[in-house]
C-alpha cells in the first residue's frame, strides 16, 4: 500500500495547479448530479486533491458533464464549453453522457458526448481531453477515478475485448 501511495504522490507532483470544475447538467435525471455533490462533501472531500467547484465556466479547467444533452440545452452546452479557457477538459459522467443511456435513440436528445463532438466541430469549439465515466449513476469513487485518469495519475483499467466463443 505504501508503494502505491508513493507512486500516487510522484504522479501528483506532475500536476502543477489545482483543477477547478464546473458542473454542467444537460438534462440528466439528477442522480449523477447527486453523486457529484457527494464527491464535493466532506465524506469524499476532493478538495484534498485540489478539486474545487466554481460557479462560472470562465474560471473552470474541467467541465463535469451529466445527462444525454437534450435539444433544448444543446446551444447552452456549446456556449458553456466555448467559455471554458484552454486547455478545455471534459468529464462525461454517467451512462447518459457517455452513450445516451436509455434515451440514446429518443427524439428529444442528441445522444451523449459522441454526438456533441460533431456539433462542437461545426461550431469551432475544440475539446482538449475527454474522459468517459460510465455508471448509472457513476459512483463517487468512479468520478474521483475518472478525474485521476483525466489528469494522467492512473492508467485506465478497462480494455476492449474480443473473445471467440468455442
Amino acid at each position: 500500500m505504501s508503494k502505491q501511495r508513493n507512486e500516487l504522490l510522484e504522479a501528483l507532483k506532475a500536476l502543477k495547479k489545482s483543477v477547478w470544475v464546473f458542473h454542467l447538467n444537460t438534462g440528466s435525471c439528477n442522480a449523477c448530479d447527486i453523486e457529484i455533490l457527494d464527491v464535493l462533501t466532506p465524506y469524499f472531500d476532493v478538495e484534498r486533491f485540489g478539486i474545487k467547484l466554481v460557479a462560472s465556466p470562465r474560471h473552470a479547467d474541467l467541465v463535469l458533464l451529466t445527462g444525454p444533452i437534450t435539444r433544448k440545452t444543446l446551444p447552452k452546452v456549446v456556449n458553456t464549453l466555448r467559455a471554458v479557457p484552454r486547455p478545455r477538459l471534459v468529464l462525461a459522467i454517467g451512462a447518459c453522457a457517455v452513450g445516451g443511456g436509455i434515451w440514446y435513440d429518443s427524439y428529444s436528445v442528441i445522444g451523449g458526448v459522441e454526438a456533441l463532438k460533431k456539433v462542437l466541430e461545426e461550431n469551432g469549439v475544440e475539446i482538449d481531453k475527454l474522459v468517459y465515466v460510465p455508471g448509472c449513476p457513476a459512483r463517487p469513487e468512479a468520478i474521483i477515478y475518472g478525474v485521476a485518469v483525466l489528469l494522467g495519475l492512473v492508467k485506465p483499467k478497462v480494455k476492449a475485448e474480443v473473445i471467440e466463443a468455442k
Partner: protein
Amino acid sequence: MYDMSLLKPLKLIRIARRAGVVTVRYPYQPPLITDEFRGRIVIDAKKCIGCGACVNVCPSNALTLIDDGDKRILNYFIGRCIYCGRCADVCPVNAITISKEFELATDKIENLNSRVVHQKSTCCSCGEERVATEKMISYVVSRVPVSEAYAHMGSNCRKRRFVEGLMLGRGMLHVETEK
C-alpha cells in the same frame, strides 16, 4: 466581563472532536461495496450460446447482436449499460455474471466495447442459409427431442421439405429415379 467570543474556537474544537474524521481515504482504502452492488457485467464466452435473450431485455440496448456473414457478434457497450442485471436474470446458461467492477473511466470510447464472437452454422440441406450459432443448436438438441439434422436445417428448407412431402403424398410430384 470577559469577552466570550475569544473562547469560541475552543467550543468548535470540542464539537469537531465529537464528530471525528468522516472523510474516506478512497484511493488508499478499498471503497465501500455492499453485497447488493451491481457493477459491469462479465460474459463468459465459454458458456454463452449467442441466443440473444439478454439483447431482448436490455433496456438501453447496451447489449446488441450483430450478424456479420458467418459470424454472430454479441457486443457489450459498457458506456450505455445501466447495470440493471436483467441480462443475468434471463440468461438460460448463466453465462452473464454481475461483477463489482466500477472503475471504468477511460479516455477512448472503443475501450468500452467487449465482444463475444460466435460462429454461425449453415443449413445442412442447401448449405447457404445461416441458421443460428453452432452452440445454440447443440444446446437445443440436448434439450428438445429433435434430430440434429432437422435443427441444422434453415426455415426455407424446412418449408420446402414439408411442401415436397405433401405433394409426393398426393401424387402431384414425381420423384425422378435414375434408370
